[in-house]
């Protein structure tokens, strides 16, 4: 029997019960290892129970995984089931893809797309990052630094506004 996730031979046969509904999974050893900590849906039980099967190293790695833009930790996402910003999808990509595949059965969007190309999206994401940096600067009482960041934010906002009007 072939692994449900990759071309290898399935050696693990898992019955997963979600919302009272059993689903069967046939996985190779490698995919089964991944499945251990990615099979959870966002409403799934709390993280510690899910992580029981993980090694110290794996846990530590997960602990360190943080979105650089909004500073959400992957573990926090796991506990709440909500991501912190659009960049989390990039920051947690390797962890999210199997989860998305589990939920949707696909990992490539098909359907409606914005008509307007998001040329300015990089700068908008910079805005998110700068706002979060300004907040931590204020909380650390680094007011000069906060003022610098504020000026950068205002500059970016002016640019973006100018373009959307132009």
């Amino acid at each position: 029997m072939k692994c449900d996730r990759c071309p290898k031979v399935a050696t693990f046969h898992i019955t997963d019960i979600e919302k009272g509904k059993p689903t069967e999974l046939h996985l190779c050893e490698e995919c089964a290892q991944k499945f251990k900590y990615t099979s959870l849906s966002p409403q799934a039980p709390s993280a510690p129970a899910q992580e029981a099967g993980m090694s110290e190293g794996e846990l530590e790695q997960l602990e360190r995984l943080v979105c650089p833009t909004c500073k959400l930790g992957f573990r926090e996402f796991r506990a709440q089931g909500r991501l912190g910003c659009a960049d989390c999808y990039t920051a947690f990509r390797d962890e999210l893809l199997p989860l998305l595949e589990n939920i949707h059965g696909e990992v490539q969007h098909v359907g409606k797309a914005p008509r307007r190309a998001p040329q300015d999206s990089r700068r908008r994401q910079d805005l998110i990052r700068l706002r979060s940096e300004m907040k931590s600067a204020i909380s650390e009482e680094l007011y000069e630094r906060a003022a610098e960041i504020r000026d950068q934010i205002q500059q970016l906002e002016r640019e973006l506004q100018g373009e959307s009007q132009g």
Partner: protein
Amino acid sequence: MELNDLAQRRGEWLRGTGAESDIVLSSRIRLARNLVQFPFINRADDTVRAEIERTVRSQLTDVSLGGPRTYLEVDHLERLDRQFLVERQLISRELADSHGARAVYFTDEENVSLMVNEEDHLRMQVFHSGFDLDACWQQISRLDDQLEDCLPFSYSQELGYLTACPTNAGTGIRVSVLLHLPGLVMTGEVKKVFTALQKINLAVRGLYGEGTQAMGDFYQISNQITLGKAEEKLIRSIKDVVPNIIAYERRVRKALVEENRAAIHDKIARAYGTLRSAQAISSQETMDLLSSVRMGVNLGFIDDLPLATVNELFLQIQPAHLQKLRKTVLDSGDRNAARAAYLRRRLTDASSASDTTLG
């Protein structure tokens, strides 16, 4: 429009017209969108939430929702008013109970609503009475286009529209129909339907959505998958399955009447009688009895009561609606008495005059 005036009105999803409206109360499509320049709500403190709300408000002035509209700052509303909007399905429970700046826009017809700062920055929805998902899609897609012209949305080529919860990523669409299935519930057949629906990745929920129990034999059927299939295909998956459920419900009703006409008639007549004479009644019991009455109207056992009135009562006996109609705050015991009085009046009026005017 004044919130208090709404209580007298029926709203689109209870209008009781449109295709298959004896069984399909309403069709609904919602889209989840996030603005690219802000973190998701989860990481947005009250300052950022206020900024998101301001941004949307400033951009929405030129966007048409398809008719005259109301804008409400949900954080400035009383608890009762928030509950009232939840009962009308204009806002979600999540928006009602959340914190910080948040808002809702809706049209006078109540067929379009747009929530700001719910689980995602924007949650827009379009309702149509009866079974008409194509009309919902055309309308909401147009609204989405208009919004996108002035508000840039988070989007990736790979994962589509990016949402706070990965369960909504991709299209961000939820397609749902609200069905009244008293026959299938009565015969226990409804379980088979649910099992079959789950197998094809469709979700079944109660009247007020996620986590609510089914009241009055109302069920919402909706898609679970949002990524990897185009909107039209996801809509198709609901559109294809609903006629089968409708046919099943009709078949079961027919069989019930053929096999046990007297017992069914008795159940319906007793339900109608109780609603017209009770002195105190809970909303749960009212919903259950109204469900029998609704089926009785559809089967012709009750001929002096318009279906639209029954639909309307399902909403107006809800706790916040009742208090709005009585223009006073009532505790649960007083509500049960007020509900019974309201039902007696409406059902006696309706049967004596077959009058469909409201109020």
